[in-house]
């Protein structure tokens, strides 16, 4: 595959779709995968694979329920990995039909309006360490470029870039763990059932 085309309309539309319709459900997806018995170290691979599939989408206007789409897509990744002899816990496969569907329903915060979304986005930035947060506020809330941000903070562009990478990493991690901190506070936390722990036990791969 060739390098991605930047600034194209299609790419921008995809980024918008993924950023607003998919990313907010990633934390739930990860929880769901863990409950299916996927090992923590396998999670990132599976999630990356799921996002990679989104790249193949030519259009996404027809996706009425992005959350359900995301979960279905993850389910397909799991099935394919099992068939390709990758290390995936079988509970996964075994429970995909039974356990999966109930979790795919719309999340309570999905209906929340743009004000809630602003709170969520600002919450992500707010939770960053001091210098990181300042960089993100200037760049994202006030729309400054990297060079302008460097001047405003009297630091080098190189440092702004480093803080940007670090902050983005932290924000992605936040989204992977809790969605957004603010949303987390509103949402009843899923308690880990003692029984969940056992599910790691049953595995099956095609060894071929």
């Amino acid at each position, binding site marked *: 595959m060739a390098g991605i085309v930047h600034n194209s309309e299609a790419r921008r539309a995809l980024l918008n779709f993924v950023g607003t319709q998919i990313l907010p459900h990633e934390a739930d997806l990860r929880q769901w995968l863990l409950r299916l018995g996927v090992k923590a170290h396998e999670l990132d691979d599976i999630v990356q694979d799921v996002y990679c599939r989104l790249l193949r989408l030519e259009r996404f206007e027809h996706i009425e329920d992005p959350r359900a789409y995301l979960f279905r897509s993850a389910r397909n990744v799991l099935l394919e990995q099992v068939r390709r002899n990758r290390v995936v816990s079988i509970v996964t496969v075994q429970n995909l039909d039974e356990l999966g569907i109930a979790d795919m329903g719309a999340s309570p915060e999905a209906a929340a309006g743009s004000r809630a979304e602003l709170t969520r986005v600002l919450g992500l930035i707010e939770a960053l360490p001091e210098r990181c947060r300042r960089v993100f506020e200037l760049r994202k809330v006030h729309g400054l470029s*990297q060079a302008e941000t460097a001047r405003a903070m009297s630091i080098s562009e190189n440092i702004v870039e480093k803080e940007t990478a670090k902050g983005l990493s932290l924000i992605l991690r936040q989204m992977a763990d809790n969605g957004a901190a603010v949303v987390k506070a509103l949402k009843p936390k899923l308690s880990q059932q003692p029984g969940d722990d056992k599910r790691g*036990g049953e595995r099956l791969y095609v060894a071929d």
Partner: protein
Amino acid sequence: MSRIDEDAARWVARLNGDASAEDRVAFDAWYAADPRHQGAYLRAEAAWTMLDRAEVMAHGDPERAQQALDRTVRTARSAMTRRYAMGAGMAASVAVAVAIGFALKDRLSIATRLGELRSVPLQDRSVAAVNTDSRIDVDMTSRLRHVALVKGEAWFEVAKNPEVPFVVSAGDIRVRAVGTAFSVRRRAGGADVLVTEGTVETWTVHDTERRVTLTAGHEAFMPETPQTVAVTFRPDDVERRLAWRTREIVLNSETLREAVAEFNRYNARQIIIADPAIGSETLVGGFHVDQPDTFARAVHGALNVPVSIGDDRIIIGTAAATS
């Protein structure tokens, strides 16, 4: 978060900052190298783009924008303390109910039904774990501790007593131990002997001179008729093949045919392979002995073959039986 995710975040920062032509070339190489890179990059760039909404939305909400600015002077909080410990405790133990009987008499018989597993302390403080559909006859005297494996399979943890040998007979096969742990399983024409601790000596009654010594981690099939015995050293495999002691079947590249035969040892609800062509597919995995349906669903997912799960039997590999 994986290394790939961090790399992706770095590339987003670089390409949205001040990227040189060389950076672009390096990025293209990284991006093309692995589909996971492409997925991770889309994810990171989508998050970066999503954050622009702060600007868009805040501009329609000056109060919030001002608040956001005000906050820059206040103390920062660490995002990291909020993290869940994901996946912690995923590997908790599995409780196993084991029927325990006491066998304190000199002579006794222990028999198990299909699917039953019994772990029985013997008079000499040894322990016998008796697998499904098996029977042992125990005979303890002051000169000899003798256990006859009448049928099936049993594992013994032998209490040390050098004065009194502990001997298991399985048909014509004999296995002798002094303070050790091992299992014996009867097979057509001989017996499997697996040693988990210490040393055992095994032989066939047709050639008592030729004895095979097995130490921990070794396994051998002892044929009734005198012939060369192949001994293998596979400690992990020995433990794996004794998973039945915790009511588990652990497969490591066994064929579907062999795996099904294992499940059928434990359950009246027999599994039938309807399509002989798939019998040689090999499988890796761990299951409970009494959950053949779980196994069948796993096979369905892994081999992509139809499976019909009924109350009395389970059929793998026939299109007509798909439910």
